[in-house]
């Protein structure tokens, strides 16, 4: 195809090629199918848009991406037989909710921190789902228990957390001056405002006990007598 077009409209091959390039770029960059009329307006004068589109369609016919016509509009679509490569990772990426980000950041900076403390800092109750999401993401873990009434569980971040956020160690989290310096924190904060220096992952706080097998069972994270999954 495209070879027997010299007779209908006599088109200079260079001009035709240029027109194909334009149509190609237009359809590629567009957020939706592009109408022939829209493309025609942008082609060099005297070039037939359908001729150009036929050329382009032929060009892409056997490739990984095809030009498809939808009524009078055009769009690129990956070739139908390519769906297996495109669909392999079904795990859609979920955006982390604002609430989860807040909780995560509190855990990162204030660890070891208990749930009550997180709520105290946020001034709002934390839904169980939020912590679950963070645990599921593999960013947050149970660190131990606070040696205080009720022996509440303390939370901390994981190695995966550091990896994901491109930190080498927890101490790389920016401090007060740096948050101010980058403008993330405005200058209008009380003088007694502080940002804690997080305690490293493996160090237990003075008032913190490590989690025991029994704790894990109690928390329902381990079936009695079973083995921790990590």
């Amino acid at each position, binding site marked *: 195809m495209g070879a027997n077009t010299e007779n209908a409209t006599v088109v200079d091959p260079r001009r035709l090629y240029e027109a194909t390039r334009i149509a190609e770029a237009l359809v590629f960059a567009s957020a*939706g199918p592009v109408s022939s009329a829209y493309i025609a307006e942008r082609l060099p004068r005297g070039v037939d848009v359908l001729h150009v589109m036929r050329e382009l369609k032929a060009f892409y016919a056997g490739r990984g991406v095809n030009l498809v016509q939808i009524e009078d509009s055009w769009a*690129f679509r990956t070739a139908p037989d390519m769906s297996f490569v*495109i669909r392999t*990772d079904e795990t859609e990426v979920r955006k982390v909710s604002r609430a989860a980000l*807040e909780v995560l950041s*509190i855990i*990162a900076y204030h660890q070891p921190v208990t749930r009550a403390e997180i709520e105290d*800092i946020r001034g709002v109750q934390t839904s169980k789902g939020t912590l679950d999401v963070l645990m599921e*993401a593999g960013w947050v873990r149970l660190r131990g228990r606070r040696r205080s009434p009720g022996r509440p569980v303390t939370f901390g971040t994981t190695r995966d957390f550091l990896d994901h956020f491109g930190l080498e160690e927890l101490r790389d989290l920016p401090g007060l001056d740096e948050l101010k310096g980058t403008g993330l924190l405005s200058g209008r904060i009380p003088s007694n405002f502080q940002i804690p220096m997080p305690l490293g992952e493996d160090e237990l706080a003075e008032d913190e006990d490590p989690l025991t097998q029994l704790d894990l069972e109690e928390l329902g994270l381990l079936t009695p007598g079973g083995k921790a999954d990590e």
Partner: protein
Amino acid sequence: MQATGGKTPRKGRGADAPMDDLWQDDASGRGLHEESLVVDLAGFEGPLDLLLHLARTQKVDLTRISVLALAEQYLVFIDRARKIRIELAADYLVMAAWLAYLKSRLLIPRQAKDDGPSGEEMAASLAFRLKRLEAMRDAATKLVNRNRLGRDVFARGMPEHIPTERRSAFEASLYDLLTAYASLRQRHAITQVTIEKRSVWSLADAREILQLLVGDFDDDWTALDHFMLRYLSDPAERTTAIASAFAATLELVREGRLELRQDGVFQPIYLRRGQKAAEGSGGEEGG
């Protein structure tokens, strides 16, 4: 910072970053018109920027500019600005004092026992800094004029697929995390009434500036306060500046970081580096 604009000296760049706004509408409105030397500091981002602009008007290679002439121009500029009572940020005045000092070093022959940097060395480092800033400016221009994504070059408008490369099924960046934390903490921090910045020179201001300059002085007696007072205070603020600078000087003397000499009443006060200047802050016991 224009004569009409209500910016106070050390208010500088506030949260609303007025300087940034001004930069946005191109360089056309900025600056000084050579003949009348109409002073408008609004377009300048700090003293180095102003110096660079002045250097460019010398129309020579930055490596060959006359630093002395440049210093003169700067000082003239500052003098005029003050004459028509334009409020100047402290940065500009500190630079003026430094340049006045540089000028004196360039004009007075070097003494044998002098081990501080020579006027020529100071001039060279200033030229280097100007050159470096200009290089970065040029680079920025080149960068912004490249084919930019979304302006000259376009991505697939109808993506069908977002490849995930992270093992995690959750997406968040460090920036997201820090933003969440900072705004959370900000929200819960008790909002305090911000007190309008004073237009007097506090002890801290003067002291800070003195300390910045002290390191640059060797063992010669220098009438530093002369430079300081000439440039670091608006005529309107003169009294408070004298008071603060003098009080700060006394404090530094007490700490042994500075020595002080005055030959007579109303004579210039000479300063030189104290014995403890090099060792950092000394004892607090008074004298």
